[in-house]
């Protein structure tokens, strides 16, 4: 999300703190009302490892101290979205999440959404000890609506609401399509999106500015394609369908954009050379 700051009554507010504050509010609200965290220790491990890894790698590889808002969000995402009675998976997932930004790069950009990569790696490689957050926070409608409305309002401020809206619309459309194949009720097919995992996935993961394409229309197309690929995974009865859909679609979309931009730049250069 774009970085900006505002000053009022002599206090400078860095807008990069908005997303961390929102996700912290969701975390605290969820835990204080329904005790969503198995332990504070697990979430602190996830956040701590995430921020320390970011500090260390940024210093070592980029030679600069990083802003930690992004690492903080990644740590909380990992801490909430994976479930395990053990502690080490939180540390490993957080490390993989941050490290992926420094290792999996193409033309100067990291191409996987970091927390999506870390979570998918754990779900695929360590399913015997890790599962995703898959249950409801109290199954109460009002907290869910508050989070969706509040989250949507903040995301709208960052001009990324269209991504969430497109994905949600796509999810509902493809849920309806799935009923033709599965024979299950529409309510059964939309049940997952009423859970907290999707709140985090839609509000924070697919909107990550560093791993989404740059044009508004492109972002909407990608969000729609994610929902479509998720449908394919769901028809194949893949439990982690949304994570895997983003894992597949996100990097491909970025690579396409990078290649297209490169070609455009090269073409411009050729035109300029010809003109010269």
């Amino acid at each position, binding site marked *: 999300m774009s970085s900006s700051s505002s000053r009022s009554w002599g206090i400078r507010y860095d807008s990069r703190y908005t997303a961390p504050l929102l996700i912290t509010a969701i975390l605290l609200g969820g835990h204080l009302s*329904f*005790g969503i965290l*198995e*332990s504070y220790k697990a979430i602190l491990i996830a956040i701590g490892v995430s921020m320390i890894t970011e500090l260390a*790698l940024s210093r*070592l*590889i*980029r*030679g600069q101290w990083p802003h930690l808002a992004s690492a903080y969000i990644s740590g909380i995402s990992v801490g909430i979205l994976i*479930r*395990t*009675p*053990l502690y080490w998976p939180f540390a*490993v997932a957080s*490390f*993989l999440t941050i*490290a*992926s930004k*420094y*290792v999996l790069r193409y033309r100067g950009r990291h191409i996987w959404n970091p927390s999506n990569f870390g979570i998918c*790696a*754990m*779900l695929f*490689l*360590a*399913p*015997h*000890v*890790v*599962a995703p957050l*898959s*249950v*409801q*926070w*109290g*199954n*109460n*409608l009002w907290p*869910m609506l508050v989070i969706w409305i509040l989250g949507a309002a903040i995301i709208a401020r960052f001009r990324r609401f269209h991504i969430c809206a497109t994905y949600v619309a796509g999810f509902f459309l493809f849920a309806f399509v799935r009923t033709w194949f*599965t*024979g*299950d*009720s529409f*309510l*059964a*097919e*939309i*049940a*997952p999106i*009423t*859970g907290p*995992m999707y709140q985090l996935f839609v509000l924070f993961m697919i909107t990550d500015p560093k791993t989404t394409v740059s044009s508004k229309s492109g972002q909407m197309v990608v969000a729609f394609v994610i929902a479509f690929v998720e449908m394919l995974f*769901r028809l194949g*009865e*893949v*439990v*982690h369908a949304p994570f895997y859909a983003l894992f597949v679609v996100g990097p491909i979309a970025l690579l396409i954009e990078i290649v297209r931009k490169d070609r455009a730049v090269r073409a411009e250069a050729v035109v300029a050379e010809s003109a010269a």
Partner: protein
Amino acid sequence: MSKTVARASLSIVFVALLAFLGVDRYLSATETKAAEGLPKEAALERYGFFLEEVSREIGIDFHHQAPVLDSKLDHIMPQVASMGAAVSIVDFDRDGWQDIYVTTSKTGEANALYRNLGDGRFEDVAPELGLADVNRSGTGVSMGGVWGDFNNDGYEDLFLYKWGSLELFRNDGGKGFTRVTEGSGLPAWSNVTAGIWLDYDRDGNLDLFFGSYYPEDLDLWHLEHTRIMPESFEYARNGGRKYMLKGHGDGTFTDVTEELGLLDQRKWMMAVSAADLRGTGYPDLFIANDYGTDDVYFNENGERFVDAGEATGVGFAPKSGMNVAFGDITNEGRYSVYVTNISEPGVLVQGNNLWVPEPGSSPTLRYRNMASTFKVDMGGWSYAAQFGDLNNDGFVDLFMTNGYVSADRKSSYWYDFSKVAGGNRAIISDARNWPAMNGRSLSGYQAKRLWLNTGQYRFQQVAQAVGVHETYDGRAIAFADLWNRGTLDIVVAHQRGPLLVYRNTTAEDRNWIAFDLEGSESNRSAIGAQVELHWAGNRQLQHVSGGSGYCSQNQRPLHFGLGEHTHVEKAVIRWPSGRTQVLDSPAVGTVHHILEPSERESEPV
């Protein structure tokens, strides 16, 4: 370090970590598959015991039948009708041989009471004694039975809990049973999945505690609607109520649930057991709830129960609790509590709970979940588990059974299950919204676990190595020395499956001692009595239970393994009446029949 070197090093670490996870996954899968059985002699030498499944050989041929509920639930019947296979041990005729009572859950099918003939074989005597035909149409079906001498006549009576009409049977001198439900004070109808005997107020008369899983007013055979499912997979409060019935010693009971403070929640209670957890002399309650947190209720002098779930640390992380078993796993004279949950790789990894009391925390009592530390965390879709010293080495071991619905081996219902389980209450609570199972399995064909206590703060899984290979959908487990040989044998009831009996053979150099207690001022079953055994620097605590595990009840006598030790320093018996009795240097290798002494004979407390 140059940036290039740093990036290269990071890449190597990154790839190595991913590779490590992959190798760990492979090894984990290989370990499960490679769990082969050892020859008997090798198992005896390595682990000190060996198990053989002998049910057919000893005359037991019992197959549980699942309930068939209202047709509105047909599409998910296997998961809704997933309970009812229970087993309890009793010496109903006081002949010194442990007998087996087992339930089935289909209308018209018969429960069985396997009388131990003493010659190695068993015979079903339930029809002639009046305990078979208890699943008649319109009366609901059996979920479990627990034994307690409610009239203190020396013979164990039966409380049969059901989804339907609950039943009380008086034991007539071991010669037959009389149904005494009418006028007893039991509720006319409830959907009970867990029940125990206890003497909560220590008045010498046994009381009953049980809980309705589904709401108690629901007739599962004649549903008016389909909104019967839990409203949440983790925070459901739309289950049934609890009941505490105070016994008067004459077969009548008074509902004291509300006045004791036990009527405040409607969690989906799956299992309960009682023990004096704080050394107050009064039995506390530990409850495992499906779709929610575990509960602890402290008994305040038999006058009320105080919700101590959060105060003890167990009331925070909601899981799918299915079992409550107490065991002194470290020989320090205190109980840890084992609660089973659900673990399905990659889908739902709750891990089981081993609640270990923090040192010095009694009587306030604080628990820490140390299942991972002790290596007893990962099961499957776990049901019953029991503690008992299976190899007589002086440390209690843990046997656990797994498996929910074993149907088509090639197709799983897990995707659809997880799809709906995370939904909003309006979706999840209505059975109509649940996709049809269509013959698919749900955590089916799962192996059992037998965790051997190494005595060094961890357990070792040896089930398959010592002869346990069956993968039916296990529900209840009971331990008993079925052939009076000084070893604990294992009886396992399976949903839609057979009753299995594992005959245990222990290494010859292992010694043991057992205590069969009979109350006089205390309830005659001695439920709630504790024995603390002191030998060779060990101090192990056990108690007589009115039901533990999941729909299970172990034998009444308390069995202690001693390892190679041949001398016991003393056994300290604390009777429910408050009396303390000390047995100095009791002989090993025998069952001591102990009658509660008079006040004059007992030691000062």
